């Protein structure tokens, strides 16, 4: 199995743990990732909120590159994933079509629109991959209560981006169960963390994050698992004082890598503000403390 890999800016900077753990897990599962050559920023929030043309053209440029490889694209960053899928949908109508035509002229090739853009949750959430994950787990997260947090970008707008029920996603739940964790029931799976407003309106983000963190604690969670760099960053860095105790916030791939005892991923946890080690250590104390 081979995929073109689109890390986006986050995975090359603030969310490096996500990048490393994703590569490690995919490798362990026999998925080969080829990073897109000369990929560029997807535009993220600034592009689509200031210029509709750029909002489509920036992600679409990467789709053009992906088409060259003949491979489907794996995009771990929820914002990148969302932008790419939006560009694909937009290419079929209205202003999106203009962007497409403009790009076709600039790049001198036709846009075929036959590349599939996948998020790791979609790729790993299928029955076969889940079984493969189960096989690879050597250090199950037995007894660890996790709250799965999908955020808003993976399911909305549903028609363009959702690969599962946008209101009730389960792919991350199933993955965490396959890794042996206990997934708690809570109501905040798809709430917004405030996203990039962390910069412009930190007060708002602190309030939103507090609600999410408190809800996770109320549900009995010992860790929050995410699949989005912005979610991880907001929840990890803005939760101070929100709940009665800090909650570690892990990338889903970090948790999987730990359960699979993948060497590449060891020590990643130290990069988080809330140290996940105590929670993970409690899980498997008989076996000695695992390092993340």
């Amino acid at each position: 199995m081979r995929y073109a890999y689109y890390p986006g800016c986050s995975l090359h900077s603030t969310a490096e743990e996500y990048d490393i753990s994703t590569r490690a897990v995919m490798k362990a599962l026999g998925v080969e990732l080829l990073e897109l050559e000369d990929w560029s920023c997807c535009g993220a929030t600034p592009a689509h909120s200031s210029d509709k043309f750029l909002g489509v053209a920036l992600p679409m440029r990467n789709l053009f590159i992906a088409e060259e490889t003949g491979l489907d694209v794996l995009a771990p960053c929820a914002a990148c994933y969302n932008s790419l899928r939006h560009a694909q949908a937009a290419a079929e109508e209205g202003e999106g079509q203009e962007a497409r035509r403009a790009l076709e002229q600039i790049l001198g090739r036709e846009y075929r629109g036959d590349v599939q853009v996948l998020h790791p949750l979609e790729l790993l959430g299928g029955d076969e991959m889940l079984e493969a994950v189960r096989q690879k787990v050597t250090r199950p997260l037995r007894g660890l209560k996790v709250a799965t947090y999908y955020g808003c970008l993976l399911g909305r707008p549903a028609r363009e981006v959702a690969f599962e029920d946008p209101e009730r996603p389960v792919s991350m739940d199933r993955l965490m169960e396959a890794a042996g964790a206990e997934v708690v029931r809570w109501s905040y799976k798809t709430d917004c963390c405030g996203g990039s407003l962390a910069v412009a309106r930190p007060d708002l983000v602190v309030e939103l994050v507090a609600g999410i963190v408190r809800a996770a604690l109320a549900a009995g969670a010992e860790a929050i698992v995410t699949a989005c760099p912005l979610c991880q960053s907001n929840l990890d860095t803005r939760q101070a004082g929100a709940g009665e105790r800090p909650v570690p916030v892990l990338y889903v791939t970090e948790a999987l890598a730990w359960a699979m005892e993948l060497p590449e991923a060891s020590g990643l946890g130290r990069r988080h503000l809330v140290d996940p080690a105590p929670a993970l250590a409690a899980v498997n104390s008989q076996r000695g403390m695992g390092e993340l």
Partner: protein
Amino acid sequence: MSRAKETKANGSVLVVGAGIAGMQSALDLAESGYLVHLVTDEPSIGGKMAQLDKTFPTNDCAMCLMGPKMTDCQNHPNIDLYTMTTLAGVEGEAGNFKVKLRAQPRYVDVEECTACGECEAVCPVRARDEFNEGLGERRAIYKQFPQAVPNAYLIEKRGTPPCRQTCPAGCNAQGYAAMIGEGKFGDALEVIERRIPFPGICGRICHHPCESECNRGEIDEPLSIAALKRAAADYGWEEFVENHPPTPVPEGERREERVAVIGGGPAGLTAAFDLVRRGYRVTVYDALPAPGGLLIGGIPRYRLPREIVERETQYLLAHGIEFVGNTRVGEDISFEEIRSKHAAVVLAVGLPRGRSLPLPGAEAEGIVEGLAFLREAALGGRPPVGEKVLIIGGGNAAMDAARTALRLGAAEVHVACVEARHEMLAHEWEIEEALEEGVKLHPAWGPQEYIVEGEKVVGVRMQRCLSVFDAEGRFNPQYEPGSDRVFEADMVILCIGQASELGFLEGSGVETSRGLIAVDELTLATSEDGIFACGDITGRGASVVEAIAGGHEAAESVARYLEGRDLREGRAKEKGEKLPPPETTPRHPAGRHSVRMADPAERARDFREVSLGFDRETAVEEAKRCVHCGICSECLQCEQACEKNALRHQDAEREIELEVGSIILAPGYSLFDAELAGEYGYGLYRNVLTSIEFERLLSSSGPTKGEVVRPSDGAHPRRIAFIQCVGSRDVSCDAEYCSSICCMYSTKEAVIAKEHDPDIEPTIFYLDVRSYGKKFDLYVQSARENYGVRYVRSMISSVKEDPRTANLIIRYYTDGELREEEFDMVVLAVGVRPPTGAEDLARAAGIELNEYGFARTDPYDPTRTTREGVFVAGAFQRPQDIPDTVMNASAAAARASSLLAEVRGDMVREKSYPEERDVSGEEVRVGVFVCRCGINIASVVDVPAVVEYARGLPGVVHAEESVYTCSQDSLKKIRTRIQEHNLNRVVVASCTIRTHQPLFREALREAGLNQFLFEMANIRDQCSWVHRDYPDLATEKAKDLVKMAVSKVREHRPLHLSPVPVVQKALVIGGGVAGMTAALEVAEQGYEAFLVDRERELGGMLRRLRFPVEGQAPPELLESLLARVDANPRVHVYTEARIEDFSGHVGHFQTTISLPHGEGGPRKLVQLDHGVVIVATGAPEFRPDGHYLYGEDPRVLTGTELEEAVARGDARVSEATSVAMIQCVGSRDEERNYCSRTCCTQSVKNALELKRRRPDMDVFVFYRDMRTYGFNERLYREAREAGVLFIQFADEDRPRVEAREDGLYVAARDLLSGREVTVRADILALAAGAVAPEGTAELASALKVPVDENGFLLETHIKLGPMDFPSQGIFLCGSGHSPKFISEAIYQAQGAVARAAQFLSRDQLMVGGVVSVVDPDKCAACLTCVRACPYSVPFINDDGVAEIEAVQCQGCGICASECPAKAIQLQHYTDQQVREKVRGLFAEVI
């Protein structure tokens, strides 16, 4: 009709669906001369309404309203009920359809079942109770709900569970697990013994393939099925043997044929047992001294104790099997001799020899053959063993030999085999147990040479085995050269396979193949006639359970052979697909229990049993883990419990073919799946319910008996939120339309919840309150004002659950701010969807569906589908409430019967009775029949004592008891006793007259007695059921009840019904769309109609409408109706008519009308004689003088005036750039507190028309609630999309209009934004409501029918009687009933005709019986009765005394009880009769 005239039409109608619509259609048709086949796919009739607690807007109990209709459907001689049945196909054409039905089995005979409930009490399987929406459980055998009709049980079966399907012998594991789960070990054993004659043996040594297939394994781990079987044998044996003592078939019933079975192993014994039970004389020959074969001579005792084998084999033999032991066929007796003495032979000789290994040194001492070794040990011998024993082989026998050698004293035991560990043939658990005991295992080693020292073996040289089988799968081990190793051993035991000894067959003609007997795969017949084989020797019996399976098959073949039947017929073994686990059975929350085992260190020392089995409690716990894949476990406990023998477990699906003239489809609707609207958390949050679930919580027959509790913790919720429009008005979940009923049902649920528990605080989150029906607004108003129901207009942005309290936090936006509020419970108002299976039904019936999945119908003939002769009734047409459903169900009945008018009466069943006996001169001779009702009565009341007591009562000449008095044989007995004892009065002491009196009265008629010479005493509902804890007192009460009934019946006199002729003509008052439709419908039914209208022209309000809501434009409809009326010779039109006088009764009314006669001359009087009246007065548009400058400024019009102006191209409108509309003008205000229903849609329709003509025109609609219910919601959406602006104003803050030069300025505060909005309009259209026409009160007074506070005519019952008046023979339709759309007026008019047809279709009405009679001599004309009668029947006649027309009287008795002069007596309940009843009770006292 375009129907072909050559073939005569069929006078019966198929009605599919038996909810309120289906029942209404069926009853209307059956009452007007047609035979009805009423079909439902449910176990009972009743439909969705049966699930409802109360109904809006009267808060009547739904079940109480509907119960009588259900009973009527069941008892009607011209309605045949088909439950669990679907429509599979329709051929032919209108008038002559051939329909195919598919009936699913109920497994209980409906005719026999008395619903006593004994079966339910013993059923071990619990399943989700669908009727209670999964909020409760029921059994696998169940009655759908307490009031189900037919009142009968049924069984849910899903198919064969995987365990049973996998078992070679077909053992019903689910069945015995169910029994063990109930602690019934003896009954469990009975279930096992049906297929496995060796339960204790199989429970120990079966390799249980069932467990690998067990669906519990998908949840956690499979059920421990084999160990449960052993538990059944361990703890149920004594009880089982006591209940099923081994008795041979009595000599007289035995068959002559003798059968020989050679081989007494499990296969042979099974065959022998089956045959001896069928009456054959069976002899079993065996080489061993005792029966059992390998069971006693192969399997070590530590696995299978000898006592168990003896106990079970002796039990079999005791059924009359002759066992001849120590007899080797071919040596002690020749095969030929056996053959000559027996009519058939079964060869079950097994594979008695072990195989040897022909290697160098094979002759050495110390090399033994495993089978012989095991046989000796198993039979109780102690064969010598060496110090160091090497077993060669990897199967179960090798493990047995190894563990036996250990027990016999070997110091070290090794097992070597060519197979790798994972390839070994021995079962994993056998290997594990051997390892536990200390056996050393050496997989993948193959023997090359025995190492011999002197005579004795000292070891075996082995080589590493690389592979066992070659590419073709043949045994062909490959070894690694040079890997040799010597395994030291002073004893080598060879366990490398078994072989046959078939020498005795030589010359017999029985063919063999590769050492086995060649048999037919299906029949197990050998090449010789009459000789069959089973077990190991056929190559299909390697395990004991397979041997048993073979034994059964061989026995079946022998029996067929001897009885001369086909050997193969019906025996093909096809295994269906594996049944997945059911979602509807509760899951017992436990993991697999493990069986107790003896300590490995201890146990390897002797031959005591290793496995200790389950203790009783663990067995029960383990059994409860079964998920009951088949639902019904076929344990057959119900069969044993049923005293009526009503169980039919073998029933299968049936096809039924019928010929009918027409078809009505009334399948109802389904509800939106709330899980699809994930944002509300249904299915995830414990305290989020759907409205129908909440309805069941409210119902006294529901899971909590009406107590409102939270599913999460059983606490009483205080704050309950109702969220509207879940799956309605929502394009995102494919439900664009409005479901029409939810606003009202949520209001009702809020009100009823509040009534159940005054602490509840209901809040309804809504978009528009759509209370558009008759009296609905008043209901909502009362909910707000009297019950404190809070209405919040808001869409919900999120629902979250607090995981600690399971409370729900709702976030919503209202009044310009975002709020968060906590609730204890949330109820989702789920929308109406097309009925489940609508597409299949449409395909079968050959009709089209509309874009929403409902039936495609004609807007102006709303019950008509796309296939002629097929009609649709109820919610399949569109979402609608119960009154609309009743109306169009009657309409469908009318349309179906019009089609078949020529053959009316052809198919109805008239019953003939013997001539009635004149009992007037006879002395009273009472017969009393006391019912046991199974044990319903008898378990509490001492029935024989009551019978004895009854015998001594004065007038009683006969008394007896019966198990079920209502059963056919008991009814026959009543008839016989009437004749035998010349009885002239009958009393039945049993249940209730409500359901059973008609049955017993019928029995009297059939015996030639007048049906009124009967009385019932209710000693069940009113005695045994309510006094269960006081049996003695209950018996005394039962005696009293019987005594009272006897006392009363002695005074009963025959009552006779007398005929009154019917004038088969109808008077239709009002000539609008309803009136014209009604008159035409009457004519199509074959009768004459007088159509009278006070206007100069027919047409009414229809004349003023221009644009359609859907379909044809109203003017076209008007034209076609006028033309049809004009052309129909049966319709007589009287315009400019006035009703001058009205008198008579149903069947014959006389109406005098006056007509204009010349210019200004006196009016001409005409008298009309008719049997029925249909009132079809309409409702004109309100003239809003004084409202919003109407009448003062020419730019202000009404909605209808705007419609007319647009249509005629009025320049004021066509040149306008801006049009405003204001809704609710003259509606929903203090003066007229009702919704006019049509104005919202009319405004939207007009707005769209304006936008269509002038897209740039500004159109504003000022409204309170947009009530574009049903599919009209689409118009509302289209209007918004077209740019029409909708501005909502508050009830108390109406818009203000100011006239200026340049236009009309309309100002209002917009509720959504909270801002003041002012628009300029060239034209202002006022949506003026509909009002009752002038003269309604006078007309109502003349007809003696009621009107409501708004001047509209008031029907009998707002829910179920929307076209009837209390006065018989007078019917209602059109807007005079309440405002409505054209299509609604049409179906109500057609429905009214169906209601009228039950009288029109008869030559005469039978009147009398239980009616009030006035004694004129006593009457003082005080008018008490006139005022008291709810049906306005009594009147003061020309003689100045009260008169009660028998034909009108309903027999309620109110007048009789009110009459101060005692001048009125209600027949059958006369003072004398009631007094006698009371006197009977107090006989001892008085």
